[in-house]
Structures are given as C-alpha cells and as structure tokens.
C-alpha cells in the first residue's frame, strides 16, 4: 500500500526541550493508524507539525509524495489534511450548520465580492454548500441540532460536530486528536464504530491520537508509540501490547519487569 503521509526524521524543539526527536512514520493510504504514548510524549506536537501549525526544525513531511513541512496551515488543509482538537475547538457562537459551512471553505471558489450582487454562481454555490452541510449533520447523527449554537450542544454532539466540520473540506487524511476523551464506555463504543464507518464508507485515511487502549487495539491497523518525542515501537496492535518497552514507558521499569514475571508464572 502506498503511503499517504510519511514523515522523515522530523525534529521539533521548543528552546532546550526536544518535543519530537528524529521521528519517522509511514501512514498507508486507507488505513486507520494510531499514535499513542504517555502524557507529554509529543503526540499533539506531531499533529501540529503535520498541519503546519508548528514549523519543524529538521526533517521532511511528505503528503502524497509532495513535501508539506513548514507550509501554512490553510494550504495544508487545502491539500487535503484536516483535523480535530483534543479540547474541542468549535466556533462556539456559530450554529452547527455554520461551523460546517466554515469547514467547507477550501471548496468554495466564487470571488467574495459576488456576494454583494448575489451572482448566480454565488447563489448556486451557497445552495450546494448548505445542502452538503445538512447532509453532514445527518451523517454524524446530529439531525435537528443544526441550528443550535455550537456551545449549547452536549459534549458528545460537539465531538461529532467537530468531526463533521473536519470532513466538510473533503480531506484525504483525517487527524483525530483523542476523539473519545471524556466519554463514557457507551459513547466510546459508538465513536469507535463511527470512526471505522468513516474509513469504510468514505475511504478516508485516519490517523488518531488516543489514550483508550480498547479503542486503539480495536480499530487500528497500525500503532506507533511515542515517548519523550521518540518512536519506541511500531506495528500491529497485538505486537505493541506485548512490547516491553511500551509497557515500561507507560507503567515504569519495575511494573514492566513485574508484569513479565507475572506472565512467566
């Protein structure tokens, strides 16, 4: 399978802190891949580098074979990468539909001034965009809530709306930053199904940061483990589960050896 995203030896430092250290990664097209790691491992920093929000200090990021490192965020989005945030960042005072309309921005082509005389092209484009927004609202299961102001939506709905907004630009690669954070087991299960459904239905490659191991192990084709900015393991979920370095990173050295001896018994 061809890689849709590949990073080659990227380094990102903040002053003396090395947030990402010589990190390389290949994301196969059409896969669901996960990046896991303890708090502060550099997962979100990695997302910020991919989307161009942070400039990398060294290394390359290739999207469909073309370098995108240090591009402006809006250009990266136009190329087909879109993301959600760990702490939901919707446009809180705009309605759900409007949030999705903003998400469709890269696809709208008419000159801004045409809105003043309401050219036919403008009206058609707006009508199509609105129809698409309604469709997306339904697709993520929020029908009837489209006119609610985003901040008034319940937590789970906000997560879904954020995904709908990210989908609105019709991305080829979707970055989800902890999509199940703060959800109960029921909601987490639904979200897991939904993510799978996204890949199967729309054929979008998905890269997610996730802490819930049941989610990670349940849907990932490939798992990458980060610790202190470095990759410490990569592979199929079940390989990762038994990797001693991963256990050590999560639970500490003593726990890792304890687990091993426990297994031996």
């Amino acid at each position: 399978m061809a890689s849709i995203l590949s990073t080659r030896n990227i380094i990102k430092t903040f002053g003396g802190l090395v947030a990402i250290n010589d990190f390389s990664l290949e994301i196969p097209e059409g896969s669901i891949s996960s990046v896991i790691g303890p708090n502060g491992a550099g997962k979100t920093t990695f997302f910020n580098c991919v989307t161009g929000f942070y400039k990398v200090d060294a290394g390359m990021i290739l999207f469909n074979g073309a370098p995108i490192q240090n591009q402006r965020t809006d250009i990266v989005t136009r190329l087909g990468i879109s993301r959600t945030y760990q702490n939901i960042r919707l446009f809180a005072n705009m309605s759900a539909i409007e949030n999705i309309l903003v998400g469709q921005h890269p696809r709208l082509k008419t000159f801004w001034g045409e809105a003043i005389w309401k050219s036919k092209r403008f009206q058609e484009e707006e009508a199509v965009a609105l129809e698409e927004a309604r469709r997306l609202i339904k697709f993520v299961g929020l029908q009837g809530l489209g006119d609610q102001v985003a901040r008034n939506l319940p937590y789970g709905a906000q997560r879904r709306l954020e995904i709908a907004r990210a989908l609105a630009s019709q991305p080829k690669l979707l970055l989800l930053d902890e999509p199940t954070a703060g959800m109960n087991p029921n909601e987490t299960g639904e979200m897991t199904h939904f993510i799978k459904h996204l890949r199967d239905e729309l054929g979008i490659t998905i890269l997610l940061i996730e802490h819930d191991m049941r989610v990670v192990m349940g849907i990932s084709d490939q798992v990458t483990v980060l610790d202190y900015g470095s990759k410490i393991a990569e592979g199929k979920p079940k390989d990762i589960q038994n990797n001693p370095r991963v256990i050590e990173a999560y639970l500490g050295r003593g726990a890792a050896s304890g687990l091993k001896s426990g297994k031996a018994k």
Partner: protein
Amino acid sequence: MKTIDWKTAIRNGLVGGVIALYFSMIGMVEAFSGRNLIGDFFNMGHLLLFGGVLAAGILTARAHKEASVGINAFSSLVAGLAAGIPTTLLILLANNVELQSVFVSVNRTLLALLTFERGMSGLGLFFLATSLIALAGGLYDSLPGVYKRTLGLSLSVVVVVAVFSNIVTQIMTTLFGRPSVRLILDGDALKPLSAAVLFVVLTGIFILREQRRVKAEKLVASGAAAIESKRASLQRQVILFVGIGILLLIAPYVLGSFLSQVLFEVGRFVLLGLGLNIVVGYAGLLDLGYVAFFAFGAYTMGILTTTGPLNQGGGLFNFWLALPIVVLVSVFFGIMLGFPVLRMRGDYLAIVTLGFGEIIRILALSDWLRPIMGGAQGVLAIPSPVFFGIKLDSPEKMYYLVLAGALLVAFVSIRLRDSRLGRQWMAMREDEDVAEAMGINLVQTKLLAFAIGAGFSGLGGAIFAARLGNIFPHSFNLLISINALSLIIVGGLGSIPGVIVGAIALVGLPELLREFQEYRLLMYGILLIVMMLNRPEGFLPAEVFKRELHAEEAELPGAEA
C-alpha cells in the same frame, strides 16, 4: 412576605438619595433646572433629582412580593424618607461649612433649588417630596398589570415628549403653522393641561391596544387564526417597511434645518459604525484608530475638490468624480495599516491601531505636510456636491446623501455577512488558529476586513468634508473612534440595526439635548457601565451574541436526543 423588609427599603431609598445627591453635586441638577418640562413646576432638574427616588419606591414595593397594598405603600414610604437623607445632610452641611471651594457646584442656586427657595423650612418640603414620590412609585407597583403597563408607558411618553419638545415644535410648525405650537407648549415646556390631555389620550389608546392583544392571544391559543396571523404579520412588516421608508424620505421637510443636521450627524456615525462593525463586530479585530480612515476620506475629498489655496486638481474633480478615488485611497490605507498588525491580537492590536490613529492626526497637523494638507489651518473651501443641477448645500439636502451612503453600506454589510467572507470573519473572531486550520487565509481575510471597514469610513469622511466645507485636524481626534466603538457596543456588536440604534442613542440624543453637551462623556460612561452590567450584548444584539451571553437562560431542545 407579610412584614416589611426594613433593610431593603432603607437601602433602596439611600441608593436613590445618593443618585440625587450625585447629580446635584456635579452640577447637573442646576444646569438642567432651567429647562421646564411641564408648566413651570416640573423641570429637567427634577427628573434627575427624583428619578432615582421613584425607582427606589418601585423597587422596594416590588421586593415585597405578594404583600398587601398597605405594606407596599409603607415600605416605599420608608424608602422615600431614606432617600431624603443624603441631600438633607448636604444642605445642612453647606449651610454651616463653606463647601464651594471644594465642590464647585454646591452653590447658593443649587441650595435654593433643593429647598424650593424656602430656606431651612424647605428641608421638610424636600423630605415630603421624596416620600410622596417614592410612595407614588410603591402604589404604582401595586396596580394590576394592565394599568401598570399602560400608565407607566403613557407617563414615559409624556415625559419624552416634554424632553424633546423642540422636535414637537418643529413638526407642528411645519404641519400646522407657528400658532398651533403655542396651543400646547409654553416656551419649551408642555402646558399642564396639554400634558394631562396627552396622558389621558395615550392611556386610552394603550388600554384599547392591550385589550385587543389579549383577544388576539386567545384566538391564537385556540389555533383558529394561526394561518391568518402569519399573513397579517407579513402584511404588518411590509407596512412597517414602507412607513419607515416614507418617514426617512420626508424627514428633512418636516424636521427643518437643525434637526436635519442632527440626522446628518447620526447618519455620519451610522456610516462609521457600520464600517467599524465589520472590523470589530464581525472580524473581532479591536481597532481604536478607526478615525484615521475617516480622516483619509475627508482629507482626500478636501484636497481633490477644494477651490481654496490648496487646490491641486485644478478644479478637475467634483464631488462625484472624487468619491471613488476617496474610497480607493481609504481602502489602500486600510490595507497599509493591516500589514504591520497582521500578527497581532487583542490588546496589542488595539494599542497599535490607537497609535496609528494619533499618527495620522499629528501628520495632518505637521508643518511637513502643510503644503498638501494645510497644517492647523486645514483644508478650506471644499465645494458642496451638485446632484443633477441641485447644489447640496443645506443640511436637509446633505441628509439624503448620507442616507444613501448609509443604505448602501448597510446593504453591502448584510450581503457580506451572509456570505463565505462573513463566515470567514466570524470564524476568525471565534478562534484564529482553528479558522486557519479550516483553510482560511488569515492574511487575506484580515486585510479584507480592514480594507472594507476603511472604505466605509472613508465614504463617511468624504461626505463629512463636503458638508462642512472646511476640515481641520482637530476634527479627527480619538473621541471619534471612541464614539464609534461605544455606539456599536451599546447597539450590539455585529448587529446592523444595533449600529443604527447606537448612533441615535449616543449621537442623536446628546445633540437634541443641548443641556447635555457638557455632561456628554459622563453620560457615555454611565451608560456603558450600566449596559455592560445588565445587557452586555447591547440593545439589539446579533442573534449569536444574545445566545452566548445569556447562555444560562437558553434552552437545550433535544439536547439528550
């Protein structure tokens, strides 16, 4: 509550009394007392002096929920007595100690006013007045709902008519001739009889309307009239629009020169406010140097069209030829200011733009640019625009120009707000980083906001220059920016009707109440504080703002679905 709540009553009363004391000591009561409202016994000073007391009486009675009329009346009487205390202390103190060296406004005239020109025996009268007024407030609050609403409304209307009697005078003079004015007005004040007649007639009208409303509600409740009422409301909207349109068109004929000038001022600030509304209200870029673009517009128009010593165009340009150039120049400078502040947010942006506005004013004053901009002498002899042979040289005629400008700008604002660009601006206002992650080009979006806002402001400046004929650097001080910002905040950020209401309230009303002029900024301050505390989203908020700031009241329909 069955018993009287002494604490609330006394506290409310004291607050009302302190308000009266405050207005007295800053000299407003004295300044306003010369302006009679009804006959020669009720003037605007009284309004300031006893307005707070009346409110104290009403609020005290309201605090005693479901109490008997007696308790309501007694508690408000207590509040009224308490309200007399602060001012009485002032009178006693002023009679024994020389206060005027510290508090300039506490003079003989004020004391005479407060004691009803009866010396110390007037003290009792003052107490009597506060108690009676608070008692009236308390009794008023005990009235049944319908009467409370209608009486309160018609009383307010009578007072408003009396306060703005100059408008009434003007309209009646135009419509019925000068003698008709003397029938109901005595100088600036309403005659007591005409005030009483007006009050009774208004009350009658309001009660009739109330009854009809109740009947209509019953019909709607029965469901029979649902479709009919929808159609009727549409009809009413059309009638309202046509009515407002006609009023706007005939306004200068009915209102005469002075009031047309006031309308012109309001229109000028509507133009400014709508431009600033795009920058601050939609795009969320706090711009305190907005007056700079107004100055660019005015100066460009002045320099291009002047027939005075600074004449550069050789009389080549008239108003209409210069207008597009003015707008383009303003847009250009809007972009020029935009570039250096692209990376700035919030407070930093505000400070830099503040500096920018001052730089422009000082440049206009400077000797360096004197050959072009005229320095302190400004640009003189800017000709009035000529529209198909009609010279627009009076406030009545210029009013149409500013009206056309405001309508155009409002139209463009609405269209842009409901488009992709409007959504870009609002997304940027909500969260700049996320907006960029949605593929929005922040540079372009910000520059467009600055450019369009500047263009609107420049248009306002051009009309301003053509109206005045002469422009000077001091016409473009920081106060203009602050005025424009205050009016969009008071009206409601991001709301176009809000800008209009804000301009009327903050620009129109002070022009009408000439007594206010000296206290204009004080009133701004009070109004802004009260607004921020009680209605932070403004008089006529944009939909989303209202939902944001009253989120605790907002329902969550289907939230659990």
